[in-house]
C-alpha cells in the first residue's frame, strides 16, 4: 500500500511551551481553504482554553501565558476533538484508518495528534500527516520545527524515541515515548 497523507500546514509554535496550541491551530487551519480568512492564531487557542480577561490575554501579553497544556484541550475549544486521547490505538492500522480518504460522511482523511513524554516532566505535541503502511513509516509535523520540515520516522522509533533516543530506554521508556493518539474531526463550517 502506498503512502497515505493529508495536506498539512505546520506553522512554527510561537512560544516555547505552545506546542499544544500550535498543533491544534495547525490542524484547524489545515482544514480551511488556502485563502480562508478564518485561520486561528495560536494565541487565540490559548485564550479559548484559559479564558483570560480581555487586555491581559495571550494575544496581548503572550509571555504571561507561556505554559504547557494538551492538544486535545486545544482541539476541543476549536470543535475538532473526536473522542478522547487514546493509548490503546498506537498502531499503524489506526493511523491508516484516520488518514484515509473516505467518501462518506467523513469526506477526507484527518491528521492525528500525538502526545509525547520527555524527561523532567516535559511533554510535547506533534501531528501525523502521513503513513506508509508498507514501509511502516510515519510523516511527523512538529511545530517546534515549523513548515517544510516533515520528518519521516520508522513507526516503532516514533513511538519509542521521538526526538530523543535514550540508549538505555526500552518501552515503556520515559523519554520520547508517544503516550496517546488523538483523533480529529473536521471543524464545523471551515
Amino acid at each position: 500500500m502506498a503512502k497515505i497523507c493529508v495536506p498539512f500546514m505546520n506553522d512554527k509554535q510561537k512560544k516555547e511551551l505552545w506546542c499544544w496550541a500550535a498543533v491544534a491551530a495547525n490542524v484547524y487551519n489545515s482544514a480551511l481553504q488556502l485563502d480562508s480568512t478564518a485561520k486561528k492564531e495560536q494565541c487565540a487557542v490559548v485564550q479559548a482554553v484559559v479564558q483570560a480577561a480581555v487586555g491581559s490575554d495571550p494575544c496581548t501579553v503572550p509571555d504571561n501565558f507561556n505554559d504547557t497544556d494538551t492538544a486535545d484541550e486545544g482541539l476541543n475549544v476549536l470543535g475538532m476533538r473526536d473522542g478522547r486521547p487514546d493509548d490503546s490505538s498506537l498502531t499503524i492500522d489506526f493511523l491508516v484508518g484516520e488518514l484515509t480518504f473516505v467518501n462518506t460522511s467523513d469526506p477526507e482523511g484527518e491528521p492525528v495528534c500525538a502526545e509525547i513524554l520527555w524527561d523532567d516532566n516535559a511533554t510535547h505535541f506533534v501531528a501525523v500527516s502521513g503513513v506508509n503502511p508498507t514501509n511502516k513509516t510515519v510523516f511527523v509535523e512538529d511545530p517546534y520545527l515549523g513548515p517544510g520540515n516533515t520528518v519521516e520516522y520508522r513507526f516503532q522509533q516514533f513511538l519509542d524515541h521521538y526526538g530523543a533516543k535514550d540508549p538505555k530506554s526500552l518501552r515503556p521508556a520515559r523519554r520520547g515515548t508517544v503516550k496517546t493518539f488523538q483523533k480529529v474531526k473536521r471543524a464545523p463550517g471551515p
Partner: protein
Amino acid sequence: MGFQIRFLTLPDGYPATVKDQWSFFETANAAQQAGLIRAAEGGEGVRIEIRSISPSHALDPGRLLQTATTSGWRVAMGSGSSAIAADIYTMQGGDGGGADPESQKLPQLACMRKGPNIAAMMRAIAMIQKNDPPESFDLPGGSFVIGLLNSPELFTDALWLQPETGDSKDLWIVPYHTVISNFPLMRAYRAADFCTYVRPIADKWKILEKPMLSVKRAKGSRQGSTGAPSPP
C-alpha cells in the same frame, strides 16, 4: 595555531545500516540516497555524533557534555533545499539486557529529515568551517570535534565543538534553531552562556510536579474509566 573541525568516523556497522535500510524511507530521492551512503562511508557530507541532554543538565553547564548520553549519529549531505539527514539510533539488541549490553548495541536508521532545519544545520557547519563571520566564531586555535547537541525539551538545536588539541578545554555550542525568544543563532557560545538562554525553559519544566498529559484527565479514557494507575 589555526582553527579546524574534525568529523568523527561512524562506528563499525553504521555505514552498512544506512546502505541497507534507506529503502524503508521515501523522503530521499535516488541522488540523495546515494549521497547519504557516500557520506556514511566517509565521503562528502557530515557525520556527527548525537549527544542528548535533559533539561536538568542545562542547570549544570560545567558538565554539559559529560552528563550527556550518546544516542546515535546523524549523517547529512547537501545544502539549501537539497540538504537531507538520516538519524541512526543505537538500539539494544535482543531483550536489551545481558551480561554485556555494550556488545549488543545495534544501529537502526530511525528517521530521515530534510527542509529548512537541516539546511540551517548544514549552513551552521559551513559557517564554522569558514569561521565566517569571524565575530560570531571567535574560537581559539586548535582542532575541535563537532557533534549534535540534542535537547528536545529545551526547544533548541545546536552543534557542540569539543577541543581535542590546543590550549583551550572549553566546550563551545553553536545553536542553529530555536523557539526561544531573543536567542541569537549561528554563533559560538561557551557552555555557560548557552545554558543562560535555555535555563528558563529547564526551570519551567522543573516546577511541574507531574507532566501535563491528557490521558491523566481524560475521564472517558481507559485510565479514567477504570481507575487504573496513571502512567509515570
